[in-house]
Each structure stands twice: as C-alpha cells, then as structure tokens.
C-alpha cells in the first residue's frame, strides 16, 4: 500500500468536501435545522403549552345540562371550544380550521337522563371531524365521554330534573313484566335510594353533594422511562439521530458520485497511470467518507448538546461505536453507488430514492414503533433502522456499551456486505 498516496487522496477528499458550500449546507445545516424543527414539533423542547384541539360546539338543546356540558368542555385544557352554527362549523371543519364539531341535539338533557337510568332512547351527539386528524378525533371522543358522564350523572343524582327522572324510571320498572321479580325489586330499591338522595340534596342545595355526578375513579401518574430516573426525555434526541442518518447517507451518495465523475475525467486516468493500486483509490475514498461522516455526527450532536441540551445518557463508548460503525457503513454505501452506478446523473436519482426509502423504513422520519408489526420486523433488515435505534439507545434509552454492541455489529455487517459487493463489481478501467 502506498500510504503517501493514500493519505494524500484522503486529505484531498476532505479538503474538497470542506470547500464545497453545497456539501456543507446539506451535511451540517440541513440536519441541524430539520432535526431542530421536528424535535420542536413533536416534543417538549420549547417548554411552552401544547397546542389545543379546535372544537366547535353547536348547542341545539340549549338546556341547563347542555350548557354545563359545553362549559366543562371549554374548561378542559386540551380543547379550545367555540360555539358555532351548524353550517359555519361544517365549513370550518372542511377548511381545516376546526378539528371537530360536536352537535348537541334538541332534548339532549331529558333523553340522556332517561337513557342513563334505563339504557334506552340514547340521544345522538353528532361529531363532524377533519379526517386528517384521526388521533385528535379519538381524543375529543374520550374527553366528551368523560364530561357527558359527569354532567348527566350529576343531573340524575340531585339535579333539577332528577325527581321526575327517578319517578318515571320507577314507574317503568314497576310495570315491566319481563324482568325477574327479585331483580325488579333490587332495582326499585336503588331508585328509591336515588330519590332519597335527591330529596337530601334539594333540602340542602349549598351542600357538598349538590350537583356532583360520577367522576373518574382513578388518577394517573405519568412517568417517562428514560436512561435514568428523573432524566427528562428530549425529543431532539430522536429527531437529530434521524436527520443525521439521512443527511450523512446523502453525503455518502455524493462521495460515490464523485468517483463516477472522476471515472469520466482525466483524473481517473492519472490515478490509473500512477503506480498505485485500485484498493488505494477506493480505500482512500471510503476512509475520507467515513471521516466526514464522523465529523458530521460530532458537529450535529455537538449542536444538539449545546443548544438543545441533548446528552448522551447511555454509554459514551457505545455511542462512539455506533457512530463509527454507521460512518463505515455510509462509506461502503457510497462505494456501492460508485460501483453500481453507470453515470453520475443516472446514479444520483436512483440512489437518492433508495436512501429516502432506507431512512423512512429505518425510522428516521417517524419512530419505527409507529409502523405495523410486520414492517417493524422487516425494518431490522435495513441498516438505517440499526443506526437510528443505536443512536436513540445510546443517547436517551441508556444503552450500556454491551447493549450498543448489537447495532454496532449489525452496521458493521452491512458495511462488510456493501464493501464485498463493491469489491466484486469494481471495474478499474474507465
């Protein structure tokens, strides 16, 4: 091996890379900007309040119960509730300005009270929703269920219409002939007790029990499980890992395309004419690409550390090992582009497409756990999945050095595969 030539070629590649403003923008600025944007969007990095779901309410019942329901919805911290007319609300949803519109039907209070005790004649609350916000629709449905149960049960147990509702229910139950006598008697006893509760509340309207309905029988304590107890999850960690992987692969493509460009130029002839081996040429190319990838990772995660407070909560040697393995994998991916591509123009398009698919399936854009189960399994056949998981794991999941071995070895395996194909298909003659 001619190390003088080898090191000169590596230095040349690095020199040219760092003089190329487009390459610098794509490799450093793009992952930092896009990673910051996604991290801010999906996480808590800003520290500000989460945006509320825009909900329109059309009150066609206009009863005390419906007004209490709307008040409860408006007080919910997850919702931004505004009263609307039906047509206005519908066009707002269609335009994407309103996420969900809830239509409280006429006679809602009476029907809901009766249905609460007898389970029949349930009123229908119509929900108009933006189909592109399926997740928010599910949230609104859950919140609405909670508040309807609280308001309606409050009305049934001590509300103004409670005596009538209880009396009607007792009459209907007493007249029922298809009910087991013992069950009927038990249900009538319950209704009598409810009636007694109503009278007690009516006698003391300012008491603690007045207007209280059913409430959720539990509270929730949420705790993010990160590398260590008390360590907050930083959404920038995943977004920076994903974007680094994507843009470093783009750098790898460029490294391969440079080889294709050189093959068409006198530069390749000069290299061939010199007393150096083909392995010196492609080895130096791979080395410079790997070094460049490592530099990008250091700069991008350095930025994430300084500006967004992203720390390596797991094993630092493990993180370095994953970075190094991914850098080597990127370098061999670039060689693959150089070897399999026929022209720079043709290879650019197809390799960018392949890269985008790799980063998409690797979980760079959205975490892989959102994929269907089968796709999650398939994605383990893709190197980017190991890269993103390895970086995620060592940064915030608290991977030990031992745990980081799996992604490291997997990435090196892919690197060996790519390098093998590159060596097999490499043609020295231009």
């Amino acid at each position, binding site marked *: 091996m*001619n190390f003088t030539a080898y090191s000169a070629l590596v230095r*040349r590649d690095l*020199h040219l890379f760092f003089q190329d403003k487009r390459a610098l923008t794509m490799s450093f600025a793009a992952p930092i900007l896009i990673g910051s944007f996604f991290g801010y969007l999906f996480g808590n990095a800003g520290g500000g309040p989460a945006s509320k779901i825009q909900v329109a309410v059309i009150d066609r019942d206009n009863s005390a119960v419906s007004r209490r329901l709307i008040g409860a919805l408006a007080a919910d911290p997850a919702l931004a509730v505004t009263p609307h007319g039906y047509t206005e609300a519908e066009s707002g949803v269609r335009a994407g300005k309103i996420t969900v519109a809830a239509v409280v039907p006429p006679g809602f209070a009476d029907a809901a009270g009766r249905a609460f005790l007898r389970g029949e004649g349930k009123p229908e609350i119509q929900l108009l929703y933006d189909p592109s916000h399926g997740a928010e629709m599910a949230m609104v449905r859950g919140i609405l269920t909670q508040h309807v149960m609280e308001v309606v049960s409050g009305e049934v147990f001590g509300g103004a219409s409670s005596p009538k509702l209880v009396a009607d229910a007792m009459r209907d139950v007493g007249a029922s002939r298809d009910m087991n006598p013992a069950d009927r008697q038990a249900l009538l006893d319950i209704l009598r007790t409810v009636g007694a509760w109503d009278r007690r509340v009516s006698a003391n309207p300012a008491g603690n029990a007045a207007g209280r309905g059913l409430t959720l029988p539990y509270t929730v304590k949420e705790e993010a499980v990160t590398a260590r107890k008390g360590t907050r999850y930083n959404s920038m960690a995943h977004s920076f890992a994903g974007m680094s992987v994507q843009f470093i692969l783009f750098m790898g493509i460029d490294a391969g395309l440079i080889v294709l460009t050189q093959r068409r*130029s006198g530069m390749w*002839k*000069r290299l*061939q*004419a010199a007393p*150096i081996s083909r392995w010196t040429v492609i080895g130096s190319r791979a080395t410079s690409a790997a070094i460049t990838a490592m530099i990008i990772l250091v700069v991008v995660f350095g930025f994430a550390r300084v500006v967004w407070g992203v720390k390596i909560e797991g094993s630092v040697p493990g993180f370095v090992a994953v970075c190094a393995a991914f850098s080597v994998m990127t370098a061999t991916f670039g060689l693959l582009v150089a070897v399999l591509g026929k022209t720079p123009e043709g290879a650019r398009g197809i390799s960018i497409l392949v890269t985008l698919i790799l980063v998409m399936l690797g979980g760079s854009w959205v975490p892989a756990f959102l994929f269907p189960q089968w796709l999650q399994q398939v994605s383990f056949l893709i190197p980017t999945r190991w890269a993103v998981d390895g970086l995620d794991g060592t940064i915030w999941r608290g991977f030990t050095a031992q745990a980081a071995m799996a992604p490291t070895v997997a990435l090196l395996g892919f690197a060996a595969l790519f390098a093998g194909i590159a060596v097999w298909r490499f043609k020295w*003659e231009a």
Partner: protein
Amino acid sequence: MLEVESLHKRYGDLVAVHDVSFTAHPGEMVGLLGPNGAGKTTTVGMIAGLLPPDGGQVRIGGGLVCSETDPVKRRMGLVPQELALHDELSARDNLALFGALYRLSGADLRASIDRNLDLVGLADRAKDRAAHFSGGMKRRLNLAAALLHDPDILLLDEPTVGVDPQSRNAIFANLEELKRRGKTLVYTTHYMEEAERLCDRIIIIDHGRVIANDTLDAVRRLVPNVNLLQLEIENPGEGEWFAAVRTLPGVDAADMENHTLRVRLDNLLDASPRVFGWLRDNGYRCSHIASQRADLETVFLTLTGRSVRNA
C-alpha cells in the same frame, strides 16, 4: 526507451487498435497522428496502463508493466486529453497531490513542484486556485502534473486541445525543452501543423492501424512530389491567358484563381525560370512568389484518400 509491440484492442466487433508497433528513444518526440477515433487515445491508454491490451505488450526501459503498482510505471508520465485538475485546489496543492501518487513527499516534493511550476511558467501563480486559470494555464499545469516524478517517458494525449496560440507556443517550448533534456515524448494529435513542428518521427494511424511510421521527411516522401508554384499577379487581365503557361516545357498544369496563379511543375528548379521569364516577357507583374511542399495533410490525404479533419 519505449517499445510498443503488436498492440491489439477490440471492443466487441470493433477493432480499435490492430497490430500497432513502434519504439521511441530518449530525446525523441514521436507523433501519433490521425483523425478522431483513429485509435490514438486507445493506444496511449494501453501504453499508460489504463486499458489492458487484448494482444501485444509495452516495454518501458526494457521492463514490462506487470501490475498496477509496478515501479516501472514511475518511469512514465501521462498528460491526459481531459484536464485532470481540481479547480478548487491551488496549483501547488494540485501538484502536491499528484506528486504523492508517486511517493513524493517533503522537500523532494516541494522542490519538484517548484521546478515544474517554473518550467511551465506558473511559478508566480502557485497559490492561485486552478479555477482562476485560463484554459492555456490549466493545460500547462496539466503538463506539470505529469512531470513531478521526473519520468523518462511522457505520453501526451492531445495536450493542446482548446488552447489559445500563445499558450500553445508556451507548451511547445516546454516540450522542446523536455526533449533537449533527453525525455522520450509520445505526442498524439490531429493537428498536422503541431506534428510537423514538434515531432522527429510520425506514426500515422487510421482505423486502428499504422499506415506510416517514419521520420517527417521520409513520411513526406511517401507522396509524389507536389512542386507547386504560387504567384500573385498584380495585373492578371481577362480571359484564360494562363493557358499559354501550360504549354511551357516542364509545366504540368496551370490555374488562376482571383490574382493567384498556381503552376504545377515537374521540377521546381528547372521549370520555375521558364515561368518567370514568360510572365516578364508578356508584361505581367508579380508581387509574391511561393512554393508549396507536401505537408502531412497531403500525406494523410494521399494515404487514406481522406482529409484528416474530414476523416
């Protein structure tokens, strides 16, 4: 010394180079002459080790190039037809890279860079990026890059393509200096005048075959004498008065175009005085007299039936 023996190269059904053999000695410049696509670049490619020949061999100083890293390759320098430079690097950095390919480093590399920048007249532009160079300056730097390791043999593949006359002359001067230093130069071109000016020996290639291989004078002798006299007549007058010239002894043909009378003679020395005398005796005044010799263009035309530029 460079010895090329029976080189053969085929691409599918196309025979690009067929049985090309020649030798080039120290201090000699050999011109590979032929139209585009004749097989010159393929021949140079095989000599330089860029292409494996299908047949034949190349010896450099008696040694065969046996592998990509064979030290014999150090004895040869290649100036490719395309500019092989990094525009983003300075002239010095470009040369430092190409010197390193031949294991040059440290003081030796610096000295070689200085020497060759000086040779090609770019010493004062050493720190400038190649992107800021004119086409001619880039060509000169391209030449310097092939000289860093002081090769015995220099292969130049159309090194003056797209170069202005001033830079072309500068490159010619560089090559003549290298020849004086005892380098062996193989120069491919389709510019006839370049080969005539620079080369000691001419190898004419057409359709991959050598159709002439000799000194410039010997190659010229391959075609019949073209003893052509051209005279600028100040007062030519009307009609075909020059038909009378055709009747003079030793005159094969005479034609007039504008004010130029072209007379083909069987012997320049014997017949020319008769033409001059006839013109003087008949009152014609002559402002310029020239004779034309057989040039390479004519040789190529004679040997192939085609003009080199139309081939």
